[in-house]
């Protein structure tokens, strides 16, 4: 009798665990850069750390500076062998390798950042960075006095072009006289070149700078020359305490915790996630006190409209550089058109190298 009682007791104690037991999640990450890049990879790593705080998430493994391409498959495989059951591959160039490894490991969930190929156990994710970029454009348009705004851009790919366009539309929505000058650095990550590109924009009269780079050199250039600057990726204000206005930033933690929960509860399914400000994946960093209260209020109002879905930065009428209508009034660019964007809107000074 005692034994039976004991068995019941043990069963009773185990019961809640058996029924509500959440699957333990062991995440693994592949990074394209070092976690110390102060930009792209740094932002992902912040998200990873936030995810790790969840009770059902085991300590995660990450591997830095993994070269893109076929070689990365070996590294991804290594993560799986170490027991990862939720793998994040955080750069476009890992796409094919991710699909490859996923085929051989159907029990593992893979999430590939910024790609377009999916499988039963592979989903993709990215953020609508153009939303906070548009808002940062409003700030720049209000703060410029010379109506010349500089933009240090990395590579002429749709993601960057979309950012420049959204930014410019934001600028022109409050200041139709302002123009945005673009300089391509053809690198994500070379502080020296970035600094020089930023200086060259200041030399031609820009008084507000924005950038799509992974290092904070543009911020230093603006600080040194007394201009204003808008950051990117993560809040980099310590590099330019006086010049920094705000920054469109990533908040990967919002998505990573959601995904970990879905995998743990078994509700995860393969999809192409493109979250925006509404879901909290992207946002605008806190304003510098130098941004006047009425500008802050205006931006907050627009931010609320974007979150509510009543404002879309790419709704018409939008003209291209030549002055022709690119999006008619009442129409909006579809997600497909946004993802393949390869033209500049009116107000951008510069060319897309072909």
């Amino acid at each position, binding site marked *: 009798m005692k034994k039976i009682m004991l068995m019941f007791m043990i069963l009773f104690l185990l019961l809640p665990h058996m029924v509500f037991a959440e699957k333990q999640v062991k995440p693994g990450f592949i990074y394209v850069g070092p976690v110390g890049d102060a930009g792209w990879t740094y932002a992902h790593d912040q998200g990873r750390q936030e995810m790790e705080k969840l009770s059902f998430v085991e300590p995660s493994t990450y591997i830095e500076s993994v070269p893109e391409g076929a070689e990365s498959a070996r590294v991804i495989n290594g993560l799986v062998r170490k027991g990862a059951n939720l793998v994040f591959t955080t750069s476009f160039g890992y796409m094919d390798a991710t699909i490859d490894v996923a085929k051989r490991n159907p029990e593992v969930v893979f999430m590939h950042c910024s790609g377009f190929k999916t499988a039963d156990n592979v989903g993709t994710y990215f953020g609508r960075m153009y939303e906070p970029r548009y808002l940062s454009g409003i700030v720049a348009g209000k703060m410029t006095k010379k109506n010349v705004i500089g933009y240090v851009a990395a590579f002429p790919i749709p993601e960057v072009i979309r950012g420049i366009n959204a930014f410019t539309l934001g600028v022109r929505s409050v200041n139709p006289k302002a123009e945005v000058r673009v300089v391509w650095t*053809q690198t994500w990550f070379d*502080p020296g070149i970035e600094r020089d590109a930023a200086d060259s924009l200041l030399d031609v009269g820009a008084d507000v700078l924005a950038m799509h780079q992974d290092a904070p050199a543009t911020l230093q250039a603006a600080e040194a020359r007394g201009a204003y600057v808008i950051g990117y990726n993560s809040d980099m204000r310590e*590099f330019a305490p006086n010049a920094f206005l705000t920054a469109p930033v990533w908040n990967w933690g919002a998505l990573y915790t959601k995904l970990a929960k879905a995998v743990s509860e078994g509700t995860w399914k393969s999809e192409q996630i493109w979250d925006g400000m509404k879901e909290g994946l992207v946002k605008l960093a806190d304003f510098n006190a130098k941004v006047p209260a009425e500008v802050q209020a205006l931006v907050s109002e627009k931010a609320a409209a974007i979150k509510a879905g009543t404002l879309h930065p790419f709704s018409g009428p939008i003209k291209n550089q030549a002055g022709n209508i690119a999006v008619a009034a009442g129409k909006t660019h579809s997600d497909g058109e946004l993802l393949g964007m390869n033209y500049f809107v009116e107000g951008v000074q510069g060319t897309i190298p072909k």
Partner: protein
Amino acid sequence: MLEILLDATVRAGTPILFATLGAIINERAGIINLGIEGLMLIGAVAGFAATHASGSLLIGVIAAFVLAFLAGSIHALITVQLRGNQIVSGLALTMFGIGMTALFGKEMVGLTITGFERIAIPGLSLLPVIGKPFFNQDLLIYFSFVLVALIWLFFYRTRWGLAVRTLGENPAAADTCGVPVNLYRFLAVTIGSGIVGIGGAYLSLASTPMWIENMSGGRGWIAVALVIFAGWSSPRAMLGAYLFGGITAMQLRFQAMGTTISAHILQMLPYAFTILVLVISTMRLAKGASQQPESLGQPYDREDRK
């Protein structure tokens, strides 16, 4: 505009200039050093860390020199004392530099310091066109001017300089004359490496006062190529480094001014220039006009003397 362009040229060219000067000292003594890229990174992180800890830029520059000097002594030990393969040892030094600086630089990311600021030289900085670009710069740039002159004087106006040059041309002859071959080669490699380290420190202390992994961005390799362009002479290294920096600065400014030339083509220019330089210098080699040290890359062992 010309003034602005020249100014950007000098600033973009200076880290490469330091690296090229350091490499020239190495190669004049007959030792190829492909570790330049790694040494620049070591200089950059050491300079930044020391400046951040002490608050003094001078201590930062000294730390950059000393750490690169020590790293260079690994290369010197392998190539001079142990007569190992110079190419392999140099490449290993670069990989070592990239890895070590990434590891030890982790703590430095996101920290800020006050970098070198411009100091105008009274009188000279008022000169038209060249005044601002050359005489309203930071101390490290002035130091690079002095260094160019000092290295030239050392090699062509001193007995030790002659001895070091002989090491590169014919170490056996130098040995016969009583020049301590290994000691001089060792010093040339380590001191040259230290100067390369200052080039790295220029990046993390003056051009962009911060530390970011791999911030040298291939400038060390450009320096390796510029040594050949410069014909192993320090004034021509200055010319080469500024040409390279100038083309980089120019293409960015072309874009900012709103030219319609494709950015891809503009971006190619500095590298196309590097290749062109290598082709021209090799063509000159064929004509027998080479200034390349005769024994460059060959280990010296007294026992092997012919």
